[in-house]
């Protein structure tokens, strides 16, 4: 029997506001425990929340980037439950009026795992969203041998919850969704979306059913994945597990499972319990905010999104769709490319240099495009030197290496090393004459039809010029002379 999987994701994204959602404490990853706290984010008696409007703007901006409907009024509710990582034992969240509804995330080929890019089930798929709402993050618990510590630095960080429709059909699509979403969040500068830092967290709901059955299978939730590839692996494991179970005639039930990354398997956390009653009600401490006032600035901050950028790179710079994809994949790389390509005569060559030599030099130096030692216009200068024949391609590689390690400009390196190619045909002709005079036999051989002799003679010209002669030009002049 064939089984199909249905996957829906709940993604939590920390916004990179400077301060927390309801107080002035800094949002900062990695500070010493409980050093970024105040009476408000500690939930001390009497403390009240005060809205960080930047968090609202960033959420509205995310909604605009993902083509969501934006609610006219932003209202917050209290979600009541007891847990030590919740300072007030209620979380300020949004219940019946999320800031954003609907919308979608387009999946790009390059967002799929590398090994799956050749075999994409539904090219150009869009995963639709149910909603995006804003809430406050909770503290972080650390479990020691006999006790638990709580770090409240994270408590009160603005957190978006993005809920997808259950329309993801494979672990690879889930991977592509998260990669594409992350890219857009980074483009909009709303989050760094680093899963390892907990800036992006993802819970998966996955159910498996026989293809012939229309009703969805039992919904099983998986938690605790700490990377996008972890999500893929967890889903693959879980789909396989459920498929085998169903194949054995087992009946699956709604449950929550954890992902053990080291073991590469999921484990049962809890079975379906009586639905938790969160007793949501509007938070009387926070007055509703009209989003009208937030929209103009949020709209102005919507960047060119990856999809549009790829298309524009192809049209404007004549790069291949694949290269455009790779360049637009990383907004900083795209920015670099654009800076280098803008005044360039051969932007396609600039792209080639970035995608080949520059990327590999950066990765072997352990650098990113942000700390690239070669400024974009310097790269274009190098490309120009090669394209205009001032230096050979081979010399170009050498100059590039020098530029990368010293930060010097290409022109200066060429001048210092005196490696500028001789492309003056008068000068080369002089050399050619000398070589033909000194090597009568190979010259005669060529005339007699031995084409290989030309290469020997060209080599002699290069040698005589100490390697500076433009080899193409030297070949052409030799041939002309001999055939002459």
């Amino acid at each position, binding site marked *: 029997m064939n089984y199909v999987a249905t996957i829906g994701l709940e993604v939590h994204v920390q916004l990179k506001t400077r301060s927390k959602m309801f107080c002035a404490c800094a949002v900062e990853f990695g500070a010493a425990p409980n050093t970024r706290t105040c*009476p408000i984010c*500690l*939930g*001390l*008696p*009497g*403390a*009240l*929340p*005060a*809205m960080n409007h930047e968090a609202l703007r960033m959420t509205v901006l995310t909604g605009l980037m993902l083509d969501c409907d934006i609610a006219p009024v932003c209202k917050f509710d*209290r979600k*009541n439950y*007891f847990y*030590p990582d919740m*300072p*007030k*034992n*209620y979380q300020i969240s949004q219940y019946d009026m999320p800031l954003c509804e609907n919308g979608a995330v387009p999946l790009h080929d390059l967002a799929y795992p590398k090994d799956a890019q050749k075999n994409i089930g539904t090219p150009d798929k869009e995963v639709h969203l149910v909603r995006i709402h804003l809430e406050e993050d909770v503290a972080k618990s650390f479990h020691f041998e006999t006790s638990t510590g*709580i770090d409240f630095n994270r408590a009160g960080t603005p957190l978006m919850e993005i809920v997808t429709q259950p329309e993801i059909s494979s672990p690879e699509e889930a991977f592509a969704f998260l990669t594409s979403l992350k890219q857009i969040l980074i483009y909009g500068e709303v989050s760094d979306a680093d899963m390892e830092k907990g800036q992006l967290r993802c819970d998966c709901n996955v159910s498996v059913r026989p293809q012939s059955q229309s009703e969805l299978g039992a919904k099983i939730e998986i938690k605790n994945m700490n990377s996008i590839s972890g999500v893929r692996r967890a889903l693959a494991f879980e789909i396989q597990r459920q498929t085998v179970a169903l194949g054995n005639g087992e009946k699956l039930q709604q449950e929550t499972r954890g992902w053990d990354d080291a073991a590469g398997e999921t484990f049962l956390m809890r079975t379906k319990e009586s639905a938790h*009653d969160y*007793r*949501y*009600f509007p938070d*009387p*401490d*926070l*007055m509703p905010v009209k989003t009208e006032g937030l929209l103009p600035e949020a709209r102005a901050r919507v960047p060119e999104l990856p999809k549009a950028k790829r298309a524009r790179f192809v049209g404007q710079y004549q790069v291949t769709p694949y290269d455009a994809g790779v360049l637009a994949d990383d907004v900083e790389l795209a920015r670099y490319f654009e800076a280098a390509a803008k005044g360039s005569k051969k932007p396609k060559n600039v792209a080639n240099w970035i995608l080949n030599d520059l990327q590999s030099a950066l990765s072997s130096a352990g650098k990113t495009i942000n700390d690239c030692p070669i400024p974009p216009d310097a790269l274009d200068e190098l490309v120009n030197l090669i394209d205009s024949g001032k230096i050979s391609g081979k010399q170009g590689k050498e100059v590039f290496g020098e530029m990368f390690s010293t930060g010097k400009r290409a022109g200066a390196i060429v001048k210092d090393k005196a490696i500028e190619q001789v492309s003056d045909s008068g000068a080369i002709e002089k050399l050619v004459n000398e070589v033909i005079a000194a090597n009568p036999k190979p010259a005669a051989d060529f005339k007699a039809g031995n084409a290989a002799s030309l290469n020997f003679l060209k080599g002699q010209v290069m040698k005589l010029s100490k390697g500076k002669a433009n080899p193409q030009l030297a070949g052409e002049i030799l041939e002309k002379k001999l055939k002459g």
Partner: protein
Amino acid sequence: MSRSDLPALTIADLQSLLRRKEVSPRQVLESLRARIESVEPKIDAYVSIDFEAALKEAETADVNLPLGGVPIAIKDIINVAGQPCTCGSKILAGYRSPYDATVIEKLRAAGAIPFGKTNMDEFAMGSSTENSSVKVTRNPWDVSRVPGGSSGGSAAAVAAGAAFGALGTDTGGSIRQPASLSGLVGLKPSYGRVSRFGVIAFASSLDQVGPLTKTVRDAAMIMSAMAGPDRHDSTSLPDPVPDYTKNLGRDLKGVRLGVPKEYRVEGIDPQVSAAVNAAIKQLESLGAEIVDVTLPHTDYGIAVYYFIATAEASANLARFDGVRYGYRAKDPKDLLDHYGRTREEGFGEEVKRRIILGTYVLSSGYYDAFYVRAQKVRQLIRQDFVKAFEKCDAIVSPTTPEPAFKLGERTTNPLAMYLADIFTNTANLAGICGISVPCGFAKENGSQLPIGLQILGKSLDETRILQIAHAYEQSTDWHKARSPIALDSK
């Protein structure tokens, strides 16, 4: 005037002495300390006092500030940096606040010295101060009776001459009712007029901080210092704060006072009715015009109040769980046991009753029928006042149906206690302002028990109700009467 008489002064009179340098802030504090030491065993108004810190502040007090060098007693629900803040609850036993509430910051900026914390019903839930886990406060007019509540400690301290003035909080009458029962002026500001930041929340959409004082002028002085917008409280109103003392002394010509027919209910003590009716006559003689008004949804006030207040309280009080501060149950078996026993042992009966009520009101399946409906009726109650204020400038009524009752008399009947709030809690539901001002005495078995007149005004119309209350006060001698405890043991 002898030093030991100082605490009998009003804030206004004390301020004149201080400005004329006839007394120093230090002398004021020392005489207050002596006074508290002598009366406190009889009334138990304070839960904690930090004279050392206060004396230090007195050294640098600038008497030219609006409240320069004036000690103010603070209800133990308001955070004062470095001082305990127990809310009258065992669950906050030993807790010291690391920060000042906005009202405390503002009072300090005006030169006032917050020197001590007053007793209260636990988490402001009650009308007698008997629900305190710390002690039972007694009424200085008759120590066998309650001072009212929940701001009973503040009321008793001022009425006993053991404070110049005090802050209370009013969620359903908790300033006005104890002011009435203790012969004081008590003002509940309009919702949003005074910042709630740093004030431990009972019911967030109803709570307001206000003064309990000997005179209307003193209340106006404290209000001028502490009212105003606060960026830490998003429910605070942006409107600028007037000088509330400015309109005091103006006559009542052309002022229309509404008397709601719904307030003529059964069960009002005849002595209270008589005193209030006489007060209305007195106001008329001062130039006010008396008009009949109607507040048709008054009957629903108590029910709506207990749905909304308990719902909000059930969430507000969730943070008291023994994880980060306060009382913690010993040797819990697991997390659930920790929560269960900490809260079982840490909260008193009335608080638990209201948490359970509020949890029920918000629970799925009942939320629409209780919470959502209560909010709709709250709107109707608001509308009642909006319409009534088209016909009048302020509404007058008794503050409470009866004068102070005996200690222990109502502790077994919470509903009777709840029903005594009928004249006060609709003002909280509507967000309007109200003041209680002394208007006579009831005589019970040889005791003189104060009666209060309530004057309600539209939102942000504090200036007007202070003006009316002041005109009335100055035309009577009620405010000059002093409680037996205040007269006693100089």
